[in-house]
């Protein structure tokens, strides 16, 4: 595999001969995959997992996917839509990549969607799964290998029903994904949502929200606080002593990206997801041990989804013999999803969003002192999102 550094002006100015040399080293017949993920600021941890997961799959196959040599070009979207757009354009216009893999967040996906799709390049999201492109705006060239944003929350609602929660407080950040999670949760939860609290994005101090929760009569809290917000919320939740009276349930709040910060405070907390590192499938055991060995940290769902993405592309390349000329054949090969997912069963719905199992996850401390989530129980099987019927594909 030839990871190539970015080059633009450098190329034209021909001052940076090194770059040019690297550039010409990427042979014309290579399959080119461009990746747009967030690698700046606190969410960089998520983007890094995606890069590492993909890279692992490449390295395991000697830099090839499905027998084809692949050159991977990684771009940082800085979590800014305009930067993401520019980077995506550079990938499709300058590098003429065959696939764009990205992004971490829905807002940057929105920004790159149209230019990538219109250049007739396949766009595969390893994480962001907004409802926007799941329904009537679904697209033949767009695939999601993670989940649809509402799904985890819907499953959380089912978990709440199963555990007999009657009163739940929801706390989410005030942005689209936060509101999607509220909508998803309310769709399946049969009890009463006693309060919905929207915090600013990047919220620091949850003491005000915790005070509200303590004075409500809730049995459980449901929350979606990715990244640093999740770390702060969990630590402050524990410090306030609420963990003794109220169950903490969440999505993307206590996962392998936040657990190194949360540590013991999160042990026993529940969440919903389609994958956990302790899942005992053969593919998964191999993936997790190889990943930990290579990168020295426990992979999260971001890495797993990215690893799956690489293997999905591999399966399609193998089927088509690496022929990028026939887009329809390639599309059909992708739709078949004929690869061994670390999540077990995996297939695409008509809107190219996944159909998969969802599980109840619980945070645990491993014997080596590291933290991870464990799959306790399967809640739903072959679960498709609720927008696919609006998609005309």
């Amino acid at each position, binding site marked *: 595999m030839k990871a190539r550094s970015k080059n633009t002006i*450098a190329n034209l100015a021909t001052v940076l001969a090194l770059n040019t040399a690297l550039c010409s080293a990427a042979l014309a017949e290579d399959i080119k995959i461009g990746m747009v993920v967030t690698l700046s600021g606190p969410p960089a941890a998520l983007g890094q997992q995606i890069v590492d997961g993909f890279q692992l799959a490449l390295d395991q196959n000697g830099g090839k996917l499905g027998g084809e040599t692949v050159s991977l070009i990684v771009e940082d979207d800085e979590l800014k839509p305009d930067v993401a*757009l520019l980077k995506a354009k550079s990938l499709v*216009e300058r590098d003429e990549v065959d696939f764009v893999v990205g992004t971490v967040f829905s807002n940057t996906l929105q920004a790159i969607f149209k230019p990538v799709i219109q250049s007739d390049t396949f766009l595969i999201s390893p994480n962001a799964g907004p409802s926007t492109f799941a329904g009537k705006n679904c697209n033949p060239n767009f695939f999601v290998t993670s989940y649809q944003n509402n799904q985890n929350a819907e499953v959380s609602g089912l978990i709440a029903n199963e555990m007999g929660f009657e009163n739940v407080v929801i706390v989410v950040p005030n942005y*689209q994904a936060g509101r999607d999670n509220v909508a998803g949760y309310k769709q399946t939860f049969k009890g009463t949502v006693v309060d919905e609290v929207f915090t600013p994005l990047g919220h620091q101090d949850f003491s005000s929200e915790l005070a509200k929760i303590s004075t409500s009569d809730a049995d459980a809290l449901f929350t979606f606080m990715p990244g640093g917000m999740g770390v702060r919320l969990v630590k402050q939740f524990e410090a306030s002593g609420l963990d003794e009276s109220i169950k903490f349930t969440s999505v993307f709040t206590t996962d392998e990206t936040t657990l190194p910060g949360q540590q013991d405070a999160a042990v026993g907390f529940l969440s919903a997801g389609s994958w956990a590192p302790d899942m005992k499938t053969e593919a998964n055991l191999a993936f997790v041990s190889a990943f930990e060995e290579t990168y020295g940290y426990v992979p999260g769902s971001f890495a797993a989804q990215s690893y799956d993405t690489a293997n999905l592309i591999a399966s399609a390349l193998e089927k088509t013999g690496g022929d990028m000329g026939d887009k329809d054949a390639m599309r059909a090969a992708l739709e078949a999803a004929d690869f061994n997912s670390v999540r077990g069963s995996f297939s695409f719905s008509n809107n190219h969003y996944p159909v998969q199992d969802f599980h109840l996850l619980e945070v645990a401390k491993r014997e080596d002192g590291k933290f991870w989530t464990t799959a306790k129980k399967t809640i739903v099987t072959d679960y498709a999102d609720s927008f696919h019927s609006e998609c005309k594909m």
Partner: protein
Amino acid sequence: MMRVDRSFLVMALIFALLLAAPFVLPLVEQTYLLSLLIKAMLLAIAAISLDLLVGHGGMVSLGHAAFVAIGAYAAAIGLESGIENILALLVLAVLVSGLFALVTGALALRTSGVYFLMITLAFGQMAYFTLTSLAPYGGDDGLTLWSMATLFGSDVVQNGGQLYLVILLTLLASWWGVHRLSNARFGRVLRAARDNPGRTEIMGFSIFRYRLTAYVIAGMIAAVSGLLTMQHAEFVSPAMAAWQRSGDLLVIVVLGGLGTRNGALLGALFLVLVEEVLGSIFHEWRLLYGPLLVLMALHAKGGLSDLLFPAHGPETTDATRANGEQI
């Protein structure tokens, strides 16, 4: 009779290069650079309007990106509601942004100096949070636009058409417009009010009215930049209004040289190209970029404009020179 000075020549050279780019770059297979130049030009239009406030008017605003975003959103919402003609959208964007500028400007201009900076930040943040709560238009995630504006049905103003040239023309028009305006009666009062507000008031000028007018004009020009940004990105997002964007614009204006003819354009080109070049060398390019800004602040007192044309010494006003030429 106008004596041709060096800053005009450089300006002409930059515009000539920008004009040549879409014809030359495809030949060397660097069409991607066009996206980069478009980004720089769009930033430059907004920065030129900000320089009218900061450089000529002495009103340091940290909320200017809000006007860009409001222009873009007004146009996007217009487009979603079925208005397809870009001229109609232009009017819409300029009016909405101008109205926002009129209302917030009237309040903000009660203050001055750093208080003005902060109150404009406050209004910018209000605009930002309002845009994030526009759920029907994508909220925080932003809105992908499926069909773009046309010029009476022609796609000349679209990415597939001649959008690059349209943006270049708009840039030229804003540059020329602000240049003329700053030398006209209006601009002279504005600069006088920047230098010595008390004196200007006692000469008989209501500086509030002039400043407010400048604020509205700047907001309107920024809205044009927003409209074109939408047309280019085919997407709008509240991130356009984030205060960091306003900060970027301010950095561009200061880097380029306050109140100078070419400062805003030079600053925008510099910022975009430096980001790209440094970014292409290594991922941690900010480790170099930060100190570079510090060095610029410490040593390049008149900004890039002054580095390139030091002959003028401390930047005197265009009008002063014009006087000198005439008499």
